[in-house]
């Protein structure tokens, strides 16, 4: 399974902070994102923002890394700490 996390404004928009998804249907970040956007409701819109950041196993990811069982993938808006 892949653990998927959402934070801040994105979590509020989706109304959920965590999902567990099958790794077979989500071989990489791009297909995971695509599958999430297919969920209907506000998902496509909320996940269409091209400023969204992605972290795989708690490291910011810019390409399209492949995923495997046990991976943790997080989607979140641009960070605003400091």
């Amino acid at each position, binding site marked *: 399974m892949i653990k998927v996390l959402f934070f801040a404004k994105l979590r509020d928009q989706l109304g959920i902070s965590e999902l567990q998804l099958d790794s077979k249907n989500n071989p990489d970040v791009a297909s995971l994102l695509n599958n999430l956007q297919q969920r209907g409701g506000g998902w496509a819109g909320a996940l269409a923002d091209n400023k969204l950041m992605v972290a795989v196993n*708690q490291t910011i990811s810019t390409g399209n890394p492949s995923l495997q069982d046990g991976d943790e993938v997080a989607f979140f808006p641009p960070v*605003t700490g*400091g």
Partner: protein
Amino acid sequence: MIKVQSEDFNLQVEYDLLRQQSSVGAVVTFSGLVRDCNLGKKVSGLTLEHYPGMTEKSLTEIVEQAKQRWNILACRVIHRVGKLALQDQIVFVGVAALHRREAFACCEFIMDYLKTQAPFWKKECNEQGESYWVDARETDAQALGKWRDNEAAHKK
């Protein structure tokens, strides 16, 4: 030393820890505070959300990058999370070095990267009890360009 915590911090305590080595000639500190106004809107407080685990990992990596660029003697980073009131301390970055040049550059570098890479999010509230997520500032993303373009210059 990196800490993500809800408790407040004390500048003097951090400073005294930074200057322990007798070779320290320069200490630069940055403290970020909750302002009463952001982008023209009155602010009465804020909540800081974070991604537990990744915040510490991200800050550790940023400090490691900084240490590869500059010769520093000590570095301390504290970022608070949770509910904060007006004028509360949010973040502390302190750097001790032989000379001021490295201390200034390293401290500013860490803040610039923290602002754009470390997974913290601010939700501000106003006196009417409304709360809203703060948008990222374009100038923060631009600030990183300085370290990429002038890598050679800043290494001096």
